[in-house]
């Protein structure tokens, strides 16, 4: 009967690791290109609501962010627990919004200014009072393109 014989002595050669740096570099470049550095530290807690009719924000440079939420634990001692607006990395009031928008606007090329979108990142437990105030201020400043930040509702089919 024929038997399978183990080929002893013939050890396979070591796997060449010469291409390892190339693979790692490839991954590195991938992550370098997709990385978006978080430019402002959140001082308020924002849990965005869920929805299904979502639009993706395409150009990051044309978007400015307004956060509304309750201050984080480390800020509650000085800021209390009432809802606060955060613009950039500072606490602010509704009256600071025009200046904030203007500061963002001057960085955008003139021909693209009409496409500026304000992304409202608002905690889902907020009440509409403060949201209405912010919306009114945005309208007054003629910043009409607004995006209510939301995440895809779980269970709905992924578009």
């Amino acid at each position, binding site marked *: 009967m024929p038997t399978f014989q183990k080929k002893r002595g013939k050890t396979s050669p070591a796997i060449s690791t010469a291409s390892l740096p190339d693979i790692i570099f490839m*991954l590195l470049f991938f992550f370098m290109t997709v990385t978006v550095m978080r430019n402002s530290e959140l001082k308020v807690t924002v849990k965005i609501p869920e929805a299904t009719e979502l639009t993706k924000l395409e150009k990051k440079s044309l978007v400015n962010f307004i956060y509304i939420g309750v201050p984080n634990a480390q800020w509650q001692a000085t800021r209390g627990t009432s809802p606060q607006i955060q613009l950039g990395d500072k606490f602010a009031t509704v009256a600071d919004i025009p200046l904030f928008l203007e500061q963002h606007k001057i960085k955008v090329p003139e021909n693209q200014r009409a496409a500026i979108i304000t992304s409202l990142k*608002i905690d889902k437990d907020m*009440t*509409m009072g403060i949201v*209405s105030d912010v919306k009114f201020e945005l309208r*007054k400043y003629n910043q*009409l393109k607004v*995006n209510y*930040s939301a995440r895809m509702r779980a269970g709905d089919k992924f578009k």
Partner: protein
Amino acid sequence: MAKKSGKEKVSNEINAGSMADIAFLLLIFFLVTTTMDQDKGLLVKLPPYVENTEQIDVKINKRNLFTVLVNANDQLLVRGEVTDVNALRDKAKEFILNPNNAEDMAISPSKAIISLKNDRGTHYDKYIAVYNELKSAYTELRDETAMRKFNKHMDDLPSAKQDTIKNMIPMILSEAESTNFGEERK
């Protein structure tokens, strides 16, 4: 000049063995700092601000108006009836399309106006849910129309045809000044 002995032994190749380590280090740094979450949300166009708040009488046929009220207790009143959010989409669709030519529903989809009014005490979560339902009612209607007319989904149509459908079923949503009955979060 003194001749260096063993010149031939000096290799002029840089040792690339540590390159992988350096690349790994950078890779791990970028892995940690990357936030993959994309910014998504409900895109809304706010109405322009008008200086004088005088009442301008605009004659709107009452049958073309779909009023949605959300009070501070997050309850919905749709055309005078208490409604659940889950039923809102179908109600809105029926109103806009008016398939049975009912007397009290929109004359045509392009005439339909949705009026949304909330209280200052309404929760943002609920507001977004309501807004989402109204928007999805329009999305579904447009998709159904696209299917009927061009036998294609809205997303697969060229933008010119998408615009035709959007003009047939324009989304007109008017938001009234919010009322101030309920208690705001303090």
